[in-house]
Every structure is written in structure tokens, then in C-alpha cells.
């Protein structure tokens, strides 16, 4: 009798387990990897810091763009306002200067009565204004014995340049009137200059 023997299938391991470790790294490489790891982390840290700075700068730039737009608008407005202000100021100064240059004889007219004493009588008052100088001529009827008033003061804002006595002109004398026998006519002439 033939003994029955069952044949078990033969399993052929196509990729057998390696008998020894394939990759054997040297001992020093452990330190190399650690160093590389530290370097990578440091690099990441630096990158992060750099990125934060860049982001801040970017934000600042975006804000600067907005501010620039507003500022340019503001500058344009201000420049037009400045031009307007300058023009208003210039016109105002011109008007004021012109107003100042136009002299009013009010101060002189108020001052003229001080040239005439109580015993005298003014007849013709002539006031000529030319630029900043003024000429005043007053025909006075006064007692023969009395001298003309000595002029020492000028009206406000004026300088006394000269003062004197002259013979009155014919048209400065009162028409149809004769002076009292004890009186005479004389003309007081004063030159003034505006300060």
C-alpha cells in the first residue's frame, strides 16, 4: 500500500525579508539631522518674522495710498483756498492803501480855526491837496496893530513845513465890503506835509 502523502503547496517568497538592515546611516548623521532640524526651525522663525514685517509694511503701504489720495485732494483744495486768500488779501491791501492815500481835509479844516484869534475874521479859505502835501491859505481881516497868530502846531498826522504871511489876492477879499478903518486884510499861508 502506497502511503498517501499530501503535498503542501510550496510558497515561494518572492521578496524575502532582508537578512540585514538595508540602510545603515553613520552615527554622526544623527547630529547632522538634529542640526538640520534646528536650522529649518530657525529658518521658519525668521521667515515668520519677515512675513509679519512684510505684512505690516504692506498694510502701511495700503494706508499710505489712501492717505495720499485724500492728501492730494486736500492739497488741491488748500492751494485753491490759498490762491483765493492771497487774492483777497492783495485786493484788501490795495484798497486800504488807496483809501489811506486819499487824504481827507477834515483834520485841516478842524485846525484852521486855531489860526484865527477872536479879534480876527476869516474871509476866504483855500485848501489845495496834492499827494501828501497840502497848502492852506486863509485871508484874515485883523486889527492893524495886531500881529498874525504865530503858527507852531500842525494838524494831526501832518508836519508843518512852512508858515508865513502874504498880501491877499483880489478875489480873496470880500466882494462889496470894505475893511474897517482900523483893520487890514492879510493872507496866512501854510504848507503842510502828511506824515
Amino acid at each position, binding site marked *: 500500500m502506497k502511503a498517501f502523502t499530501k503535498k503542501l503547496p510550496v510558497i515561494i517568497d518572492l521578496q524575502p525579508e532582508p537578512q540585514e538592515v*538595508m*540602510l545603515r546611516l553613520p552615527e554622526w548623521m544623527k547630529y547632522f539631522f538634529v542640526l538640520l532640524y534646528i536650522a529649518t526651525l530657525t529658518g521658519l522663525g525668521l521667515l515668520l518674522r519677515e512675513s509679519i514685517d512684510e505684512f505690516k509694511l504692506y498694510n502701511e503701504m495700503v494706508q499710505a495710498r489712501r492717505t495720499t489720495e485724500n492728501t492730494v485732494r*486736500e492739497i488741491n483744495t*488748500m492751494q485753491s483756498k490759498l490762491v483765493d486768500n492771497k487774492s483777497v488779501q492783495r485786493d484788501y491791501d490795495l484798497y486800504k492803501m488807496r483809501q489811506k492815500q486819499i487824504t481827507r481835509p477834515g483834520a485841516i479844516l478842524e485846525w484852521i480855526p486855531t489860526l484865527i484869534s477872536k479879534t480876527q475874521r476869516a474871509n*476866504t479859505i483855500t485848501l489845495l491837496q496834492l499827494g501828501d502835501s497840502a497848502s492852506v491859505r486863509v485871508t484874515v481881516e485883523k486889527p492893524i496893530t495886531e500881529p498874525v497868530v504865530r503858527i507852531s502846531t500842525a494838524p494831526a498826522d501832518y508836519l508843518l513845513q512852512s508858515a508865513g504871511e502874504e498880501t491877499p489876492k483880489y478875489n480873496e477879499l470880500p466882494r462889496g465890503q470894505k475893511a474897517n478903518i482900523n483893520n487890514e486884510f492879510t493872507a496866512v499861508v501854510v504848507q503842510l506835509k502828511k506824515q
Partner: protein
Amino acid sequence: MNFNTRAQIAAILGILLLAAVTVAPWVAVSHWLKPQEAKWRSIITHKDDLVRQMLALDKEVSSYQNIPEKKEANITFQKNIAATTLDSLQGFVNSNPKYQVFNFKTIQVPDSKEVKFSLVASYNSLGQLLTDMWNTFQFMEINSMIMQPNPNKPDEEVITSVSIRLP
């Protein structure tokens, strides 16, 4: 070169590749973002310059004081100049009953702005008239004034001849 050595080299290269991938953004920052940074900084500097310019302008604008009032004053001055005419002068003297003015005559020198006028008025009226006239017509230049007592009423009235220049 045996199998082990090749494997070691491959591992080192792999690690170096990974390190390069990690460092790549940093390199990108240095090489791409830095030129951008220069551009951004120039934008910020430009903004700072503009702000400085604006502040200087603001200071200059603020240095002009009372501009609205001056503007109004200028308009008043312009109106005053425009209103200073022979007609308005005549109207001012003739239409105002508070001045007792008689024989008011005006003569305008042809082709000139010079105007002469003469009037007879009481002493008090004359002073008031002249003051009001000078205050009303501020740009009227007075060239000459001659005053004489009225021969008919020497104690009451005065004959005045005034030569003026209209603006």
C-alpha cells in the same frame, strides 16, 4: 559604490531637498518681496512728503486772518468805487433834506474824472455835508476847496467850491 553608500547619499539628498523646500519661501521673500518693499517704502515716503506739504500749506492758509471779513470789505470797496459817480454825488446832495444846500452846481471836466461843484450852505450844514460825503464816497479824491462867506449873508452862509477826482 556599494548599496549602503548609495542609500546614504539618497537619504542626504532627500533631506536636503526637504530643507530647500522649507527655505524656498524665505528665498522668495528675499528675491521677490524685497524689490516690492522698496516700491512700498517709496509710496510711504511720498505720502509723508505730501502730508508735510499739506501741513505747510495749512499753516500758510491759516496765516491769512479774517478773510471772510476782508472779502466783504472788498465787495463794499468795489461797490463804493462803482457808486462814486457824478450822478450819485448830485443825488446825495440834492435828495437829502437834512442839508440846507442852495445853488448846487456840478461841472465835469470833459474826458477827465475831475468834477467841480459849488454850493451855498449854512456853516453847520456845510460841515455835516462834507463829513457825510467823504464817509459815503470813500475813494473820492479832494483836490481843492475854496470857502468864502456869502456876500449876501456873510454871517450865515458860506460859498464853497470843491474840486474832486472821481475814482
